[in-house]
């Protein structure tokens, strides 16, 4: 399936387009923050949008499942049962310049939260969101490894964006991939022209040999085989987990992580609100049962569980893809260096055999 239309917009015309989009919805676009941090945040002036950004450490999926949100407010009156007032976030949003890996993640979240028990909160946000993605013609950061994970760098038609922008010299190729996308372009027809054959061949040149430009390799397929077949020795899980301090950064910032916990905040025991807040599986309290029994009390087992969810085939089947898009955020967030790429590298070492020599020589090298 080809994109419905391919157009071109000049780089200097982008602010005008963004200004038009801002009249329709809140535009969540890349801006530059303190310490040169890239942030996908609500744009207040079209000039703020900076498509030469690298990568936002906070994935845009956190707009669908925020770090914490009020699900409903409750009130007890005169001994009656509580009155519940749900709160839905119906703000219209246009995600502008989202990286390909994050688009895949947005669709993963959408699928996850609509599959068995449709989640009204996430569903409402998905329904009110349009996605204009930005393909990567070079890995934005050295930690990127999407090419290993079917996460990018270029989206094929039907992979989840409404419009895909592809940077070429001084201009962007605009691949319109949905009706919503057509409307977003139709709002400012004077800014776009039809793409020519020359534009399209430029695109092909830009992505040729892309796979070779990544400095991080993750060997995802090998990891999937190892984890699915339970071929990772318990000792290795424990060794890896010993490095983990349970901060949760990898999960909070993972665009595919969906876990949350629910807490109530009350005032005087009469009114209050139920909050849904991000949570993660590397905490003992995450799985502790009411009886006090904990099926996953030790870090090693928690660690294994996390990677099992991300990499094992049964989960892939259920979620429609592996649990990693190669965005590389956990490589930044993990101060102890037990991130996805590092773990997959260790799995790869497991099966590396020397070309000759006795079998025990195949043991992974230990650091001096």
């Amino acid at each position, binding site marked *: 399936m080809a994109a419905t239309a391919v157009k071109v917009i000049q780089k200097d015309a982008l602010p005008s387009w963004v200004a038009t989009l801002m009249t329709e919805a809140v535009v969540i676009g890349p801006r530059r923050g303190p310490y040169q941090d890239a942030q996908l945040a609500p744009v207040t002036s079209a000039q703020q949008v900076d498509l030469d950004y690298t990568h936002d*450490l906070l994935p845009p999926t956190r707009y669908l499942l*925020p770090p914490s949100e009020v699900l409903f407010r409750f009130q007890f009156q005169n001994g009656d049962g509580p009155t519940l007032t749900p709160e839905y976030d119906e703000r219209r949003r246009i995600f502008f310049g989202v990286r390909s890996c994050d688009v895949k993640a947005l669709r993963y979240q959408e699928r996850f939260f609509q599959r068995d028990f449709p989640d009204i909160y996430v569903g409402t946000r998905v329904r009110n969101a349009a996605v204009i993605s930005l393909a990567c013609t070079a890995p934005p950061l050295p930690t990127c490894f999407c090419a290993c994970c079917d996460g990018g760098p270029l989206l094929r038609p039907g992979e989840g964006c409404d419009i895909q922008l592809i940077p070429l010299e001084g201009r962007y190729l605009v691949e319109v991939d949905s009706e919503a996308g057509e409307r977003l372009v139709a709002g400012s027809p004077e800014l776009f022209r039809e793409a020519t054959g020359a534009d399209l061949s430029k695109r092909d040149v830009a992505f040729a040999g892309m796979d070779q430009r990544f400095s991080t390799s993750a060997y995802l397929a090998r990891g999937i085989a190892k984890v699915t077949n339970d071929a990772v020795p318990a000792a290795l899980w424990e060794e890896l987990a010993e490095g983990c*301090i349970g*901060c949760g950064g990898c999960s*909070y910032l993972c665009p595919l992580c969906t876990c949350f916990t629910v807490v109530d*905040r009350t005032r005087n025991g009469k009114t209050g609100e139920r909050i849904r807040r*991000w949570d993660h599986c590397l905490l003992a309290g995450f799985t502790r049962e009411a009886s006090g029994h904990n099926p996953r009390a030790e870090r090693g087992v928690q660690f294994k569980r996390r990677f099992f969810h991300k990499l094992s085939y049964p989960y892939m089947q259920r979620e429609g893809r592996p649990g990693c898009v190669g965005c590389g955020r956990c490589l930044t967030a993990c*101060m102890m260096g037990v991130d996805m790429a590092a773990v997959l590298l260790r799995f790869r070492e497991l099966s590396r055999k020397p070309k000759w020599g006795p079998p025990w020589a195949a043991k992974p090298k230990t650091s001096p």
Partner: protein
Amino acid sequence: MQRVLTVCPYCSCGCGLYLLVDGGDVIGVMPSAGHPVSRGSLCMKGWTSFQHLRHSERLDSPWIRRNGTRTRVPWEQAIAHTVEGLESVRLRHGGGAVGFWSSARATNEEFSLLQQIAWEGFESTAVRFDPVIHTLDHVPASLLEGPRAARLDDVQGADLLVVFGQGFLDHHPQVASRILKARGQGARVVVISPYRDALAERATLHIQVPVSDDVPSAFTNGGDWLSERLRTWWGEAARPVVVYPLKSLPLQRETALLGAFESLMGESGAKVLLLFPCANSRGALHRRAGMTGPGDRALRALVVVEENPAAWDARFRDLARDLDLLVVLDLFLTETAELAHLVLPSAGFAEKGGTFTNTEGLLQALQPAVSPPGEARPAGAILAELAGRLGVRQVDSTSKPSPPPIPVAAVEGATATAELALASRAADDPPQFRHIPDRLRHMWLKDTLLRHTDDWQREHQDRWVEVHPEDANVLGLRPGWMVRIAGDGTEFQAVVRISERVGRGILVTPYDLFEGLVQVERSA
């Protein structure tokens, strides 16, 4: 979702974090990727730092205690009562009877205000910032500033690291991370500590010292084979760095150790990273004026800013009950606030401006992202109002005449560190131990982190105590048994773990349990 850059309020590393703000509420936090300390990562303290801000138990209006009952009062009345109370103590007992204590989660600006109120309003030097930092006159300035003072990033670039103490993975994870990264790049890491924790496990060499032993001797004594090896390594190292968390040792031995650092540094050009405990401990060090010991009966009135000494200090509780006026500024109704005549609700770190000084001396700005709940106000605003009512000139802190230096008395308060040998115990006299909390003594964390952060409470439910097998044998303890641990003014029960990771004569407990001199006996 807007992002407001501020500073993590917990350890002294000072990670740059963004408050994620939506609808007037801090809904989460995230690290700054470009910030030189956080570099895109936070520890669990940082990641959960927003959870206490909208806790149900946040104080949202001033309270007054009369005849044993607490009632809400308007701000106007609370301030008037405070001013009257302080003035009346001054008239009857003199300004020196008015004391001010603050925790190291106060900003530099709040410290300065407190100092000005104390000095200009009362000519009182009974000012105390941070229970840990008030006895740091022995720290040589050359180890804090100048070419020998290491920055956090020097740790990662080192080729030999000599690390004192345990628990870095918990109390200063950004330092532990840099130590392990250096190790990964081939640096030699020597850990000198009584407790073999996860970092010591991964060190090139762990020198397990008995806590009662003279730690400096392991470092400087020529005869010891370990220090011989250390000396050789030291000679081979091009970029050696020493990491030492301040207040890990009793005053005298710490002074000796820091002296040893100084002479070593002079010879080899090595660098030293002195770690302060709390977010603004270093700021407190620069701004403290003097202090009055907790048992000082000369005090008749006390203003406590976001500190909770009543939780761990029995002597403080006695002092507090005896005061004519105790005013407590805090976010929660702490043990100290329970004893107060007046409780003034103050703002959390995300609700106020100001600056923190991190352990390297980096001055960083806090930014208010949301308003405090109800009528709560930033401590700085409350103090400024008090200063105004008391007629204190608010002058630039740099141009202010310094108060006379007060000799630091040998009061180490609740952080007393006596060691007693097991052998000396009589049958009816339970053995006493030196206690090492698994993480540093961030007493002031208790209220925000340990009691009002859901995820932290959920995660740290287990109360355990780790004992050396021989000590367990002497005490007749078995793993999994419940013991009662009694100390200076507090006691608790914990499950016994037996492990050789602990040296003899030491008990290791998690974070939130009492520290100091403890006695152990089996629960009935």
